């Protein structure tokens, strides 16, 4: 039986763990981090996240990681770096010499596992560059972060990575010796981890919810690690994608949170009880002012949400003329004086009055 050898190897591969892709969105809102400086400085948070990334990579050597910064006015790739941005950039004005020194010393550290060192090196380089290219005008211009854009980039990257993973699988099939050739059925397990510090995201309500539903369809959990602020829509995102939402009670124990709650991938989570917030805020934001509403008005045609009935009851989105019913009438709490006689006279001739006596 010549085939026995080959089959055995293939089966062995299929039993191996499925690799997972961890996509971290790092909210780098300078305002928010400045506020956290005394409890959890940005650099310490990064260090903790790096340790977490290392743990993720150590679980399975086929595991992948990607990090993106959701900055004040743009979303920026931190790792892996886009091909247009080589390892040692030629941005001479940023004090390249200094960086080179740290980079090299880091990489030549013999006691460090090289893949870990590479990521650490690359991530720190990108971050420093990001902060250096941030101007005061940028900070003045906005107090928020580009979360919706970052989520969109994350989803498209995940989509590409999934396709690439399946392609290598298919191409490698005739040669079973190649890596990652098996587990085609399960595919790459991708998840997003948002490390969030900004609260106020209501004005990005629609794009964030759109990404949430896209993630739900792709079965990509959107884990949320909330260091500061409170965002209704990120709660909903985590809930909708069956992910973990954690608002930290103790910021300095962030590593514990990362390791205990966010390290298991979705396959492992099937067998675990995952800690998550019990209560989810399901409120929506109105389309007219992007503020979170308790009571909203929904267009029955296009489902747009408004905080007050739009002017003339014409939907702002689809321009449909809507009927409002009794709602919005000024409450009448004091009985009027009876005017029964007059009403009875009106009754006969007025055509439009719907006749209540039909009962």
């Amino acid at each position, binding site marked *: 039986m010549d085939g026995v050898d080959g089959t055995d190897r293939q089966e062995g591969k299929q039993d191996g763990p499925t690799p997972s892709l961890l996509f971290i969105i790092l909210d780098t809102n300078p305002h928010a981090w400045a506020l956290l400086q005394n409890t959890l*400085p940005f650099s310490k948070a990064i260090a903790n996240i790096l340790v977490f990334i290392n743990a993720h990579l150590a679980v399975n050597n086929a595991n992948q990681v990607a990090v993106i910064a959701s900055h004040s006015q743009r979303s920026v790739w931190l790792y892996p770096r886009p091909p247009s941005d080589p390892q040692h950039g030629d941005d001479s004005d940023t004090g390249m010499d200094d960086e080179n020194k740290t980079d090299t010393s880091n990489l030549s550290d013999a006691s460090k596992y090289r893949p870990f060192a590479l990521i650490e090196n690359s991530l720190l380089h990108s971050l*420093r560059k990001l902060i250096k290219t941030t101007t005061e*005008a940028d900070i003045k211009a906005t107090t928020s972060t580009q979360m919706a854009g970052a989520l969109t980039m994350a989803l498209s990257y995940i989509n590409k990575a999934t396709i690439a993973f399946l392609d290598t699988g298919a191409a490698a099939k005739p040669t079973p010796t190649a890596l990652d050739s098996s587990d085609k059925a399960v595919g790459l397990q991708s998840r997003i981890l948002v490390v969030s510090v900004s609260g106020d995201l209501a004005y990005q309500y629609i794009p964030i919810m759109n990404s949430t539903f896209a993630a739900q369809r792709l079965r990509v959990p959107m884990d949320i690690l909330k260091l500061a602020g409170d965002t209704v829509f990120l709660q909903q995102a985590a809930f909708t994608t069956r992910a973990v939402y954690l608002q930290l009670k103790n910021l300095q124990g*962030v590593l514990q949170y990362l390791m205990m709650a966010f390290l298991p991938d979705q396959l492992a989570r099937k067998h675990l*009880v995952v*800690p998550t917030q019990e209560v989810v805020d399901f409120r929506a934001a109105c389309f007219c002012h992007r503020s979170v509403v308790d009571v909203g008005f929904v267009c029955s045609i296009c489902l747009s949400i408004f905080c007050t009935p739009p002017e003339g009851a014409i939907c702002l989105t689809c321009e449909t003329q809507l009927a409002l019913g009794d709602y919005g009438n000024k409450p009448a709490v004091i009985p009027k004086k009876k005017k029964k006689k007059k009403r009875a006279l009106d009754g006969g001739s007025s055509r439009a009055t719907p006749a209540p006596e039909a009962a």
Partner: protein
Amino acid sequence: MSSRAGSGLKGSALYKKTDGVFSITDDRKSIIWTPSQPPDAAPAITIAITNISNLQQTPETNPKVILKIFEKPPGGTEATPAITHLFHFNSPKAPREEANAIKEVLSCLLVGLKANDPSVSKVNGHLPVSKAPGALQFASSDGWYEDSQLKADFDLQRDLMIRNPFLKQTYDEFRKLKSDGLSLTQFNSQFWSTRTNMLRAHAVEFNQKKGSYNVLSEVKPIGDSVTINREQIQLVFSQHPLVKQVYDENVPKLNEVLFWERFFLSRLYKKLKGNRITESDTTDPTFDRYLNQSDDDRSLRRRQEETQIPHFIDLEGNEENQGGTKSGNRKDWTMRPNSTTKVPIIRSLNSVSERIMANVAPSDIDPANPIGMSEKEFNELTLRDLQAASNETRIELNIKEQSLIQSRHKSSVSEEARFYAAKVPSDVLHDLSDDVMNGIGGGLQSAIGFIDDSNSEDEDKLPHVGSKSSIAEAQEHLIQGVKARGKEIAVARGNTDSKTMQAGLSNGIFESLTLSHATTTEFLNQFWLLFLSGDADRAGELSKTVESLDRAMERINAVAAAAEKERQEVIEQQRQEIRAHYQRTQKRLAWNANTIKGGEKTVMEMMDPIIKTLRKALTDYKEAFAAQNLEAPGS
């Protein structure tokens, strides 16, 4: 009035509670209604026939005879709702006859109008049934299920509550608590106004008639004896004419009881039921004679021949043309006309169903419609892929870019944004870049605050990232989360005892809490309906509802007090047990009253959301009241 009625085009009718005469003009162009007082009054209402978009009438069973006329609003389009006129035919002699005569003439006129209308497409020369607005909605369907009628139908409501004990409980509880100023009628209409959907569903269910069933599969012989009643025998005869024939030819000779006993053992019975006959089945010459006879009813045959079956689904016709078994239908044995012997069960079930259906008068077809294929049937049989593509008739929506909407409405600035905006940008940037450039200089290990030989006492003095105390707190938080989630999963899977659900409350307390919650919700519902209606005539009703809301709060407090009393009793009992234990053994047991769950705190926690909503309702009411008192002092 009655002397003038009866001509067929006139009838005495109430309109908005005024007596009058409803008639169709002699030129048949419009309908008019003339009040009876004063005697020579001019017509108060005139509707051109061309403006009538629909007609409805109460069903024959309803003692009230009301004709509902839908009038197209002047200059209105399809979208604007029609104006409805209700005429209550109240002739002391024969209101139903008068109304029927008028309705018939009107619907004829309407059908005639529509037939000449070029905008209505015609299918197969017939009028499309569903689109002819003149066609009466089948009498019983619409009139029955209108909100106002449902709300007034006490029999229906009683019947629904008998079938739904929980609803009855809510009703009784709510009725007990209603304020005295609210009349029973007002109360009823309030209570049912939010439940018309339930009433409607029940009315529909109630009005459905059960059809006949496949009787041979229902009657099951037990051993040798069989019980079959009159009605079932009738059904067997109508569903299986062959049995009727056998019975006719044999029963005087054969004892009736014996006939049925033997029939249910015979091969003929098996054949009619569609079962396969095997060698081991008993033979019975009386019945076996008929085995080869067809069970087909002659009248059914005739009916089938009369119906024009489209050629492409005519299996027998296809067989004749040699198109069937030799090509398309060769593989599908269910699509062959003569496969009786192969799959008898399908054949016999089909023919039984066909016979059952043939005996039922169709309830969804208006007998006034032209005979032949209905539009629906026609559509079902059309080979759509052979037709030219039809024009799409979708309603276009003009969706505007969301960013345009937002820019028009200035977004309110959040507290967070205002706070951040107050910071000096250069400071923010400086701090951050300083930290990023130098923060991780010492390597990851020191940056995450990992100190191998630290002990917690030293650390507590100086909290830092990664300190043992912070890690312990994080861990505690996470474990709480895991526990909560675990409980949730257990509840979702249903493997949890009621004690955890009730958080220490006894069954009695928990039940009254549930009930109190349900009635409060009900009162809140009524409150908002009245409050937001803006109807000054109902302000009295509204103030009664507010009183009920006040009492709802009192009820919650009462339950909380009862729960607390219960908890204290448990605590006292346990204290005594511990004392007794101490006296017996001289050992103290560790005990803490806080471990006893339930009590006022639990009740208030559970009811917190509804208490908040109660407060909101009462505050809004008081504000509105104060504002209106200012506007109209002394009223």
